[in-house]
């Protein structure tokens, strides 16, 4: 199977987002990083998630974030086999299926745009990816969603938060990329 053109990609993405909202709920990803953090933290500090019959979700946490909305996140940490968490794990599986069903197996472990600017050293690429991850997830959790939740699911429903989030992201991402990945030697 060849890489899809932009219109096929658009149809595929639209179908994913529509099916999700029609059958269950809008797609969102970034919250599940908090849930996985909580699952890990709970093994070290079990008191982070406590059953509490008085809480709306039945769970509470000494941490304000996990305790918000009636302990919603605390509950999902206590019961990781829930829709949203499995959905994100399944995305990893979807990426794997896409990889094994591919005819063209070419994969540039160092992105070509990165290599053109910084050369073929994997360490620098891994450092950028790691700190990119730290910054992206911090920002996405502050914003309450990421590309999937705010930009796609949000703008689809004409959410003001979705429009303003998308504008804020691109206003910064485009100039920073242009500076960071400018062609070597100017131009």
């Amino acid at each position, binding site marked *: 199977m060849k890489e*899809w053109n932009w*219109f096929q*990609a*658009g149809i595929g*993405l*639209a179908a*994913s987002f529509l099916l999700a909202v029609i059958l269950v709920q809008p*797609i969102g990803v*970034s919250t599940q990083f*908090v849930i996985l*953090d909580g699952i890990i*933290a709970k093994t070290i500090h079990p008191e982070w998630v406590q059953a509490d019959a008085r809480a709306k979700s039945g769970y509470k946490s000494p941490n*304000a*974030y996990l305790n918000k909305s009636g302990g919603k996140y605390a509950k999902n940490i206590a019961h990781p*086999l829930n829709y949203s968490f*499995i*959905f994100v794990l*399944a*995305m*990893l599986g*979807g*990426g794997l*299926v*896409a*990889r094994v069903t591919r005819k063209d197996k070419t994969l540039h472990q*160092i*992105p070509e745009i*990165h290599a053109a600017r910084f050369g073929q050293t*994997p360490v620098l690429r891994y450092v950028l*990816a790691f700190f*990119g*991850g*730290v*910054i*992206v*997830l*911090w920002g*996405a*959790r502050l914003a*309450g*969603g*990421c*590309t*999937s*939740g705010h*930009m*796609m699911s949000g703008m689809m*429903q004409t959410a003001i*938060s979705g429009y*303003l*989030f998308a*504008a*804020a992201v691109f206003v*910064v*991402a*485009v100039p*920073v*990329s*242009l500076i*960071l990945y400018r062609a070597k030697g100017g131009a």
Partner: protein
Amino acid sequence: MEIVFAILLGGLFGFVLERAGAANPDKILGMLTLRDLHLMKAIFSAIGMSSLILFAGILLGVVEISHLSIKNMYPGVLIGGVVMGFGWALGGFCPGTGIVAAGRGRKDAWFFILGGLVGAFIFTLQFGSLDAAGWMTDWFGGKATLVNTGAKGASPLLTGSWTPFLAMAIGAAMLAIGALLPLKPGKTD
């Protein structure tokens, strides 16, 4: 049943993101450096199409309104968006595409996920004080939408039964933008 849906829909979304090129940092950074707008065209057309069909479904009564969910608007949405934009340019992944890229066999994506867990944890610890500082205070009544969706708790800026048609018109306009944007702006051919 929900878990079956999670596996099928999550698997579909992951597969689609990969085939769309969204799990490839070259495609993401190509878009952000305005050299290759493949993904920009795909995103515009996808939001346009899905919005058009969603609101048509709402008007026809075939979409379960209770499944809609509007995210709140507050200062943190803008600050978080600006911060995420910076990180996106740095790493070339957003949360969903990073996960799919790891499944796709990209080593850098695992570093992104590891970093993401650190970033999300730092925020988890900071939430209480940021909330107290007013970063999470609702704007526009919180779950603000442009049109009347009927979603629970939402506060539409425009009310009236005609507004879903406006949403469909915006959807059609986004689809048109997706079609009209040049694929490779730098190249004249």
